[in-house]
């Protein structure tokens, strides 16, 4: 399930069984930073709040958050809480772009090949989807 599908459910539904939860928590926070839901220098909810919201073990939530601290995406202010670092968004976008080919383009091209969709045809489809409604999907 992609992040977008999960978000469309609009609840604490998360978690695919194939990967550690702490990674998924970290990715959710990253996604929120990239989309601007969490602004740079904004305070991030506490690990207990994450745990309650996603109904997961607080230690697991803490592990996800700490991973982002180690990456320099979040920083801790003792006694106050956790904040989004300046420059976090650009760093995350850069990283996601590097993963984009593997994660999205290759599977797409593979499926297209299977269905006999030519690369040019595929490119045209992508262009069309750009002009089509951007907010489609969630009802």
């Amino acid at each position: 399930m992609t992040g977008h599908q999960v978000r469309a459910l609009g609840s604490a539904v998360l978690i695919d069984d194939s990967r550690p939860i702490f990674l998924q928590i970290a990715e959710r926070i990253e996604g929120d930073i990239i989309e601007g839901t969490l602004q740079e220098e904004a305070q991030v909810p506490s690990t207990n709040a994450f745990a309650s919201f996603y109904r997961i073990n607080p230690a697991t939530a803490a592990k996800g958050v700490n991973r982002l601290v180690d990456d320099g995406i979040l920083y801790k202010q003792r006694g106050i809480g956790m904040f989004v670092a300046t420059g976090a968004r650009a760093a995350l976008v850069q990283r996601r772009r590097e993963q984009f080919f593997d994660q999205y383009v290759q599977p797409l091209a593979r499926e297209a090949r299977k269905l006999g969709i030519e690369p040019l045809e595929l490119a045209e489809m992508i262009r069309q989807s750009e002009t089509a409604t951007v907010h489609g999907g969630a009802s």
Partner: protein
Amino acid sequence: MKTVIEVRNLSKSYRNSVALDSVILSLEPDRIYGLLGRNGAGKTTLMSMLTAQGFPNSGEVKVFGEDPYENEQVLSRICFIRESQKYPDSFSAKHAFRSAALFFKNWDQELAGRLVEDFQLPVKRTIKKLSRGQLSAVGVIIGLASRAELTFFDEPYLGLDAVARQLFYDRLVEDYGRYPRTIVLSSHLIDEVANLLEHVIVIDKGRIIMDDDAESIRGSAFTVVGSADKVGTFLQGREIIHTDNFASLASVTAVGTLSRAEKTEAAELGLELAPVSLQQLVVRKTISAAGADLGASKTSSLEVTR
């Protein structure tokens, strides 16, 4: 880190049946443990030994570093909520909470009051007259509000509907977040509790067959679905824990993880990959353990090698 529970070679049999077979365990403080396994696997026996409510035939149990038997120092720090907890006949829930408040030094009356409202528990009715779900709610409330350093919940949800169970899980996560302590949650409803657990212990026929961090178990196995020969080639050399065949298709569960390259290879071969949930993994493992008992070739497939 100091351990809360140390168990060495613990064995217990009842007449002809072995309930616990050389169990070795060590539990660290302030974690939520899942104690999982089938009915009769030995979960309740194990918890009874750990709370000094039963005597082992052999082996050693240490709780907070001491022998728990008739040890008030140790027992006053433990709360054990049994599946079918008994209360004196004349007791109402209010009486039960009052006794719990006397016994548990960390008892939080305010939390108990909030939980009573959450579960809409009639506190003045005698416990005898409560429904099965309400009886479970009494146990859940005592277990949470006692805030004991070591709390055992043995299938605490009998008769609780899905909403009430969710309420229990939510309050557990919330209160544990604020007041970390060691919690041992025994459950059949593995999918429901999987995400709450930090560590998972699976017991089968009195033996521990899994004792691992929940996060490392997550993703420690995967299922491949596709034409049987392609699946076979793809999984060559891997440890297989389960196989289902359907016509020319096979669905095979194997131990380990797949690299990105291997995932791509699977996709190129037209194979489908599916994650294995904790519940599926436990079912697979306890089934293959049963198979081993029936005299199937004795492999090490019961243990996750990593």
